[in-house]
């Protein structure tokens, strides 16, 4: 019996690798297992190696597994590319069609299974994926029937015959594999899961659902990897709420349209990735200057320029904090789990309205696209708070006076009225302006308005700016990260603890304004601090040094090869850093 399994299916892009992983993992999720998936893919539709690595566990998991128990290969390239991940006792099941070979001497068993032949005999060679799922079920000692509900959901609309054919393919794969398994290969029987039905979703699903729950009723966006799923979900669902999505001509239009809609009173947003955010920089400045609420999602991917469009990276951080000309109040937030992505996205709309400024909601490719089991989401936790938005009738103004939309107030936030409101007329401009919104370039007004805008975030209320796991009063090591590295850091932390290292963990959820008061004591009490992040220059580490100091005890573990951090990466590099502390080099690159 095993508590955990790591399974990977690979082949050429466009031959159903994604749906194989999808059907396999959805079925296991329905049995109550916790799943964590990561897709390796390229920016093309057909051809090129792709794989889907799925971790199955009886307990929650939030990281890609270090190694592999089972590899399902539809071509030799899949074996060549992924074999190194298999541990001794692992299994390769490969399509007999291409006469698969594996390197010798690692204790890995190879089974050449006629995936394609069996599928062809059953009437459709495309069902080779189902045969592979069946073969897997034999190794796991799972009844092929567990896949039935997913097969019905996937193929039901094509008719009962298609469903039955696919089930037949699964059963045939299971039967064939059962006959091949001899005493030399252990079956990998998973310990029973708790049978609870949980959600199984990608981060982008949670972001999109969080947006609707948070009252977003308009979205303007331009397609881009890895953000498009957010727009696609809203296109499907917003008609139920009277809302609309416009696919714009570019990201400048998307961001500006969202600003126009927010100005007129709708909770509106856009979502993109680095290249789109670069184009939006000027518009984000407009929202800051005009104090218009705005939510922008940045699902980070490998940069710069087109970079690695389908790969994991966290290199937009400083650009998101500083990326507009001039100085504006801005909130940059970063959830550390899919559950948080849901709640935080809803909250982003509250913050945007309460502080009347742009909110950048950061994600990264691993969080946005990794499909995983998600704990139940509680809609009762969602609040709608609209800040100083004026409701109802306003008193008449003196003749032709403007409403003081930019009134100087103690907290810097001014009353806001929506266009269409009687006695609320005011001007809005990206030019420096006085309290009524009319342009003004006087030095006194400039100082007053600049200070007012900057004052807004001095006392920002953000419920959990840092996710903390504090086990020790004075730890040997504080691990710091943001976004999807949380799982890898948590697992590395356990291994380091087993080695006798006292470790605390801080995952930053509010990156700007930086939660100095929350983070400083953690850094002060730690002997050493290692910041784990997916970029080449240590952006979060630099932000930490800038805000809390202690540069002499902060080192970095960096990874920027496009692949997610594995728990073993973090563990090994922390060990290396601790062995040579103070570090000769300030960072340990992967």
């Amino acid at each position, binding site marked *: 019996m095993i508590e955990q399994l790591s399974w990977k299916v690979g082949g050429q892009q466009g031959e159903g690798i994604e749906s194989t992983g999808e059907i396999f993992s959805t079925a296991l999720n329905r049995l109550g297992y916790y799943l964590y998936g990561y897709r390796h893919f390229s920016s093309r539709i057909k051809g090129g190696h792709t794989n889907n690595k799925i971790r199955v566990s009886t307990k929650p998991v939030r990281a890609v597994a270090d190694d592999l128990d089972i590899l399902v290969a539809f071509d030799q390239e899949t074996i060549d590319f992924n074999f190194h991940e298999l541990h001794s006792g692992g299994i390769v099941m490969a399509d007999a069609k291409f006469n698969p070979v594996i390197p010798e001497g690692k204790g890995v068993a190879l089974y050449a299974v006629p995936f394609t032949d069996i599928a062809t005999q059953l009437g459709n060679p495309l069902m080779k994926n189902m045969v592979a799922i069946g073969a897997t079920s034999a190794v796991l000692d799972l009844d092929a029937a567990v896949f039935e509900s997913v097969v019905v959901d996937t193929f039901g609309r094509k008719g009962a015959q298609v469903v039955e054919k696919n089930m037949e393919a699964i059963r045939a794969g299971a039967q064939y594999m059962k006959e091949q398994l001899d005493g030399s290969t252990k079956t990998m029987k998973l310990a029973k899961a708790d049978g609870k039905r949980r959600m199984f979703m990608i981060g982008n699903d949670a972001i999109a659902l969080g947006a609707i729950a948070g009252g977003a*009723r308009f979205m303007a966006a331009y397609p881009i990897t890895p953000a498009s799923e957010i727009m696609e979900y809203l296109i499907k669902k*917003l008609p139920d709420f009277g809302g*609309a999505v416009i696919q714009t001509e570019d990201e400048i239009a998307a961001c500006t349209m969202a600003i126009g*809609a927010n*100005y007129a009173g709708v909770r509106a947003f856009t979502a993109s990735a680095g290249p789109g955010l670069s184009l939006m920089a000027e518009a984000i400045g407009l929202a800051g200057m005009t104090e218009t609420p705005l939510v922008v999602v940045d699902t980070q991917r490998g940069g710069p320029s087109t970079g690695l469009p389908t790969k994991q990276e966290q290199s937009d951080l400083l650009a998101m904090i500083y990326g507009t000309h001039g100085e504006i109040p801005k909130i940059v937030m970063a959830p550390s789990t899919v559950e948080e992505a849901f709640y935080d996205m809803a909250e982003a709309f509250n913050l945007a309205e309460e502080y009347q400024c742009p909110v950048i909601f950061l994600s990264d490719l691993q969080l946005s696209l990794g499909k995983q089991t998600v704990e139940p989401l509680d809609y009762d936790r969602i609040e709608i708070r609209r800040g100083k938005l004026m409701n109802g009738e306003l008193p008449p103004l003196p003749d032709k006076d403007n409403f003081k939309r930019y009134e100087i107030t103690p907290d810097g936030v001014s009353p806001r009225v929506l266009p269409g409101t009687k006695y609320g007329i*005011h001007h809005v401009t990206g030019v420096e302006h006085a309290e009524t919104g009319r342009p003004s370039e006087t030095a006194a007004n400039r100082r007053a308005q600049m200070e007012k805008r900057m004052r807004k975030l001095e006392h920002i209320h953000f419920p959990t700016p840092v996710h903390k796991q504090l086990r020790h009063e004075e730890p040997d090591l504080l691990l710091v990260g943001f976004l999807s590295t949380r799982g890898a850091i948590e697992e590395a932390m356990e291994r380091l603890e087993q080695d006798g290292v006292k470790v605390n963990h801080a995952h930053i959820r509010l990156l700007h304004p930086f939660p100095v008061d929350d983070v400083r004591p953690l850094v002060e009490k730690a002997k050493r601090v290692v910041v784990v992040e997916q970029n080449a220059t240590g952006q979060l580490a630099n932000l930490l040094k800038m805000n809390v100091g202690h540069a002499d005890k902060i080192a970095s573990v960096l990874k920027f090869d496009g692949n997610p951090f594995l728990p073993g990466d973090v563990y090994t590099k922390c060990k290396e850093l601790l062995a040579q502390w103070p570090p000769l080099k300030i960072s340990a690159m992967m």
Partner: protein
Amino acid sequence: MATFKDFRNDVKPNWCPGCGDFSVQAAIQRAAANLGLEPHELAVISGIGCSGRISGYIHSYGFHGTHGRVLPLAQGVKMANRDLTVIAAGGDGDGFAIGMGHTVHAIRRNIDITYIVMDNQIYGLTKGQTSPRSAAGFQTKSTPHGSIEPALSPLEIALSAGATFVAQGFSSDLKELTSLIEEGVKHKGFALINVFSPCVTYNKVNTYEWFKERLIKVSDIEGYDPSDREMAMQTVMKYDGLVTGIIYQNKEQKSYQELVPGYSEAPLAEAELKMSKEKFAELVAEFM
């Protein structure tokens, strides 16, 4: 009932005396009053440049945005509140250079707003550089030997992009311009109104006199039918774009808002932001 005076405010425009933009300002104020609007029911969204200041010179809601992005801003406003009358306004550089991508797509999208371009064939606020509307050979600070690029034709572009309302006016004819704006606002869809609005400081070629000698009204062309797109295109090409009036109008095409599935009849800004627990459970169940 509001009169055009109710759409005036006490801000003194920073336009040069004699600037064509004064007439556009007056025409918007008159058209708004003639349409029976109250000042708070109108939102004037403007771009950057001399012309972009217009939203600050009208007593109504106004948003002065970024250079070239007046149309995305205005479309967002209209999508959020379909009861507002939204007029977008800007210059030829704003709409046909930096913002051309948005102009073409706003035209084909056909959201129910009115877009007025104050076309002076030059960049005024930056003190006299060539515009995409400057004719080949036109000498400016940025084209001291004369522009070597041909002028683009906004009317031809609009017609080929699927416009449902294309009109052209002239600052010297306030009456016609006011009526064009009224018709543009009444049109159910995107209305483009290009206005020859001379720059008296930097454009010494395309002056009031120059236009008066050349412009003809389409209503004076015998048999002119503004619902005939082919005739509209031929006429624009024949007269090198120097025509005024409603050049083309398609009254059959539905506006974008009428075609969006499920789009709220009431202003979206008034939408309920909460949902029932049952609805949430239904959304969640799809991920099980």
